[in-house]
């Protein structure tokens, strides 16, 4: 054979292949260290579970931590005869429970083989310690320590969410991450931040002898893998405030949302009735109870419930009117107990007339906004009523209404803001006019928004024209949040139009009793609260009580929206609740002059008004 380049290449190929084959021969046949002995079960991987990341509030207080609990594992093949009664009394279960389990294992003995199965989970350390003392009497039984969630503070049960064992679907979706028996965040922050919180499993490798007893560490633990703990999550929630908010909303159905306007960080987000954190720790036991509760405590009303905003929405219509040049701060309109059109009337309460824009907010005049809204639709500036309707729709959407805000709640609801297409489909094309949809002027009718939308409107007012997308996860070096949360979102209304509306909000609260201001009950000395009440019709009973407010007027620190179902006037329940929350946050405690109000709110019970 001649030595040409072809043959050199073929020789090279042969040498390379020989290297591979010799190496394989070494590790598969010669070298014992890579081999397990005759029985295929000789290597046992004992999984080390990572500790799940801790969830902190904005001030470093632990909302969700970890504590140790034990899983009772049984290796049926290793079980010898034992005293069922004694075991049952130690583990605090009935003897029948143990007998039933053991019979089940016997039936499935082929499937189980030499594996261990979980007989009981979440044993508290006290019980496990009792077992550990006498464990020599029960061969085949052993405990496995496991971190479970611990909630040192009753705040934000709905926000935090819970973890539970992975479902078959989870495993199918991420077969390389989850194995049966692993835990996964199912709702709330536990679910949205699962990737950060989870950490990575490790394991120790042990060798079994021929009698299937674990003997030694494989290669002295050289091949073991350490578990990597999960990353901690810092939320924007203020635990103290959240707790207080939950107290205020107790026995009422509705939501309470507080945002820090300068960042968009959610300070408090209460959905009432909610889940108590004690239930979260052992969700398995309480799941049935929670799921069958007619008030749906799992349902996060603050971001998932769509309500009409009521008079709060006048702010938006007023601002659109200003931007479109249809009203000025000095524009005055009369109100004769309502707005009369044709033979119909949209009623209003008694107040002096005529009034200007600022006073219209302060006294929440319905008629004023009927004039403004009708002007918006009929001005002809954008063509027909239908076209003007769509312009109005775009304005409203720029405030975040009618669409998902993009917060970090995956289940966030977008709500609904109607446009001309919608009314065309309801009434027929061209068969509706401004007066048909006049209730939109005061935030009634076909508008749907979530309490989060309202809080965001409030933050926009506080910032005089822009907002940051509300969020509950704070970015840290290890946890990255979308950069959109750091960007100002401007509305389509120029920022120069906001101060006059803010002034109206200020006067609504701080004009003193008898002045006509609708929210004087929310006034707190020295805090300069600016607010707007709303009373939204609820076809299922009493009106909903709505209130948004921010404080202080200059350089605001907090913007709150309270929505209480069937709470009648805005000033009746929502305004006291929201103002108490603001006072708690800014002043630290409730002043003596407002203690009576606080007591009334804390003891108030509206549950019987709600027909679930």
């Amino acid at each position, binding site marked *: 054979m001649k030595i040409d*380049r*072809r043959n050199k*290449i*073929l020789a*090279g*190929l*042969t040498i*390379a*292949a020989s*290297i*591979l*084959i010799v*190496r*394989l*021969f070494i*590790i*598969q*046949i010669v*070298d014992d*260290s*890579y*081999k*397990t002995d005759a029985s*295929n*079960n000789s*290597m046992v*991987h004992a999984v080390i579970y990572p500790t799940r990341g801790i969830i902190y509030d904005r001030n470093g207080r632990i909302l969700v931590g970890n504590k140790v609990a034990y899983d009772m594992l049984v290796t049926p093949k290793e079980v010898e005869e034992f005293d069922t009664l004694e075991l049952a009394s130690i583990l605090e279960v009935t003897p029948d429970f143990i007998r039933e389990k053991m019979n089940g294992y016997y039936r499935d003995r082929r499937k189980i083989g030499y594996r261990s199965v979980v007989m009981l989970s979440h044993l508290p350390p006290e019980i496990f310690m009792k077992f550990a003392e006498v464990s020599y009497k029960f061969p085949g039984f052993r405990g496995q320590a496991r971190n479970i969630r611990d909630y040192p503070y009753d705040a934000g049960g709905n926000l935090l969410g819970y973890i539970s064992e992975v479902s078959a679907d989870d*495993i*199918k979706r991420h*077969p*390389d991450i989850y*194995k049966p028996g692993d835990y996964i965040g199912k709702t709330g922050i536990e679910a949205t931040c699962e990737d950060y919180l989870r950490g*990575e499993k490790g*394991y120790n490798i042990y060798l079994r002898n021929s009698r299937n007893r674990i003997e030694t560490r494989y290669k002295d633990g050289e*091949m073991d*893998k*350490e578990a*990597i703990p999960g990353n901690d999550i810092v939320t924007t929630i203020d635990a103290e405030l959240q707790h207080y908010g939950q107290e205020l909303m107790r026995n009422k159905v509705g939501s309470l949302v507080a945002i820090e306007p300068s960042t968009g960080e959610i300070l408090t987000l209460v959905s009432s009735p909610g889940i108590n954190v004690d239930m979260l720790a052992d969700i398995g036991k309480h799941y049935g109870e929670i799921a069958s509760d007619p008030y749906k405590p799992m349902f996060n009303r603050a971001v998932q419930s769509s309500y009409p905003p009521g008079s709060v929405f006048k702010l938006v219509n007023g601002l659109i009117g200003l931007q479109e040049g249809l009203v000025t701060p000095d524009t005055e309109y009369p109100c004769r107990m309502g707005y009369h059109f044709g033979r119909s009337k949209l009623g209003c309460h008694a107040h002096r007339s005529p009034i200007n824009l600022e006073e219209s907010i302060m006294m929440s005049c319905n008629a004023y906004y009927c004039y403004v809204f009708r002007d918006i639709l009929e001005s002809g500036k954008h063509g027909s009523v239908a076209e003007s309707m769509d312009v109005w729709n775009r304005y409203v959407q720029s405030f975040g209404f009618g669409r998902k805000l993009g917060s970090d709640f995956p289940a966030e609801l977008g709500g609904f803001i109607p446009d001309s297409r919608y009314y065309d489909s309801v009434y027929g094309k061209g068969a509706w006019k401004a007066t048909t949809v006049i209730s939109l002027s005061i935030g009634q009718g076909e508008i749907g928004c979530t309490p989060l939308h309202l809080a965001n409107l409030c933050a926009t007012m506080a910032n005089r024209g822009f907002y940051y997308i509300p969020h509950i996860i704070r970015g840290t070096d290890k946890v990255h949040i979308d950069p959109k949360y750091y960007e100002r979102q401007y509305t389509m209304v120029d920022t120069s139009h906001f101060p006059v509306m803010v002034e109206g909000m200020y006067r609504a609260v701080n004009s003193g009793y008898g002045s006509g201001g609708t929210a004087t009950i929310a006034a707190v000395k020295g805090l300069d609260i600016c607010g707007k009440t709303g009373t939204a019709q609820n076809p299922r009973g009493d009106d909903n009580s709505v209130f948004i407010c921010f404080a202080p007027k200059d350089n605001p620190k907090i913007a709150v929206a309270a929505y209480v179902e069937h709470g009648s006037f805005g000033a009746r329940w929502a305004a006291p609740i929201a103002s108490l929350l603001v006072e708690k946050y800014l002043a630290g405690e409730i002043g003596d002059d407002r203690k009576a109000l606080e007591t009334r709110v804390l003891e108030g019970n509206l549950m019987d008004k709600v027909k679930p």
Partner: protein
Amino acid sequence: MNKYNGRGLLETIDWKLVICYLVLIIIGWVNIYASIHSSEPSSIFDPSCRSGKQFIWMTVSLGLAALVLFALNPRIYESLSVPIYLATLCLLVAVIFLGTEVKGSKSWFVFGPVSFQPAEISKIATSLMLATVMSQSGYRLSRARDFLITAAIILIPMAIIVAQSETGSALVYVGFVFMLYREGLSGWILFMIGMAITLFITTLTVSSYASVMILAVVITICNALFSGKFRQWLKIYLPAFILLGALPFLHDWLAGMTDNPGAFILKIQPLHILGGVAAVLLPVFAMRAFRSGKSFLWLSIGAFIVGVAFVFSVDFLFHDVLQEHQRKRIEVLLGLKDDPTGVGYNVNQSMIAIGSGGLTGKGFLKGTQTAYGFVPEQSTDFIFCTIGEEWGFLGTASVIILFVFLIWKIILDAEHCREAFTRIYGYCVASCIFMHLFINIGMTIGIMPVIGIPLPFISYGGSSLVTFTVMLFIFIALVKNEKKYF
């Protein structure tokens, strides 16, 4: 015009290649099923699991193979190679901006359930382009202009793929030097490339001391062989190198012996001694070269100095110029550090899996190491572990022999061709398959760094299977065409 010589399909198609191909894809399919079997026990055909998907890809591949074999005229490749190559380059660049990020590198286009990697197609495009350019009459690899064009054809897609952070895929292109070697590339260039890679990796993994030692040993051996004084080398140089090689150990041992860490003897690093020896010997060699007038000796001295400069600049660049995170990235890419689980975790796991297979393996679907998910990427890049664990040494050796047979046969067929185009293309195919084979299997048994590239025909994944099928069948079609007309 060529005359049709009347041979039928039976004679013109290289059925050995086709059968070898079919056996390989079926081995792949069965082992993909075995690797996912424990986590999702379902039918091998179930389209929701990986083996079912692979089956769909196999059907698609066979369809494409038939298309390439029977429907397309093999003449088109030569004329279309330039547009195909340019279009592929565009795709490669586009994916950096428009692609979806998968495991830290932007190299995939995702269309609903189907995703594909332009880097795969570019292997075919580059091979066709090389074959076209290098088969032009008047092309000579030794001419600088032709050499530069050829180098550019290989290096441009390679550079773009490195920019996609798919260094592993780019490494495959190094394999084209085998084809270039066959086409007349100087063996010294091949040798120098090999030397540079070795020095680079030893510098980063072991030490620059070891690199310089290797360099010195290789250069003196070359010199000895060249001047026919190999015996003398064995007598004088070998003991000297053994002594120098033992120095670092001696140093460590001394450090363990003395209590005084500041002792003078410890301040003399092995590298200082090596430097001293070199400083004394280099002028001596230079003198000898000057007297004897042997240019080879001059060349050796020059090569040694260049090599040492190379080693220390790699060392300096890596340890002193690069930032911590860049360094880490290179270490991970080279498989030096497999963060975050510590060095060599994947390799250990995969070697345990393969090693536990023994001679005959644990049997189909009986594997425990691969099945419990301790081996990462078990159906894609680490599929060889499943073969090793369930089919043992017999299985792994058979697979390697099958591959060797395939590559061998491609080379023989290529050599028998009259057209340079077919021969060059054939060598390209053989080089690509060989690089994938050696890097992939080498990685699973710990003799190559962890570089995530698939095992051709066997690993799970549509992009890779379809690409290699089309690549191979274009070659079979070209060969068939030749047999038909000559």
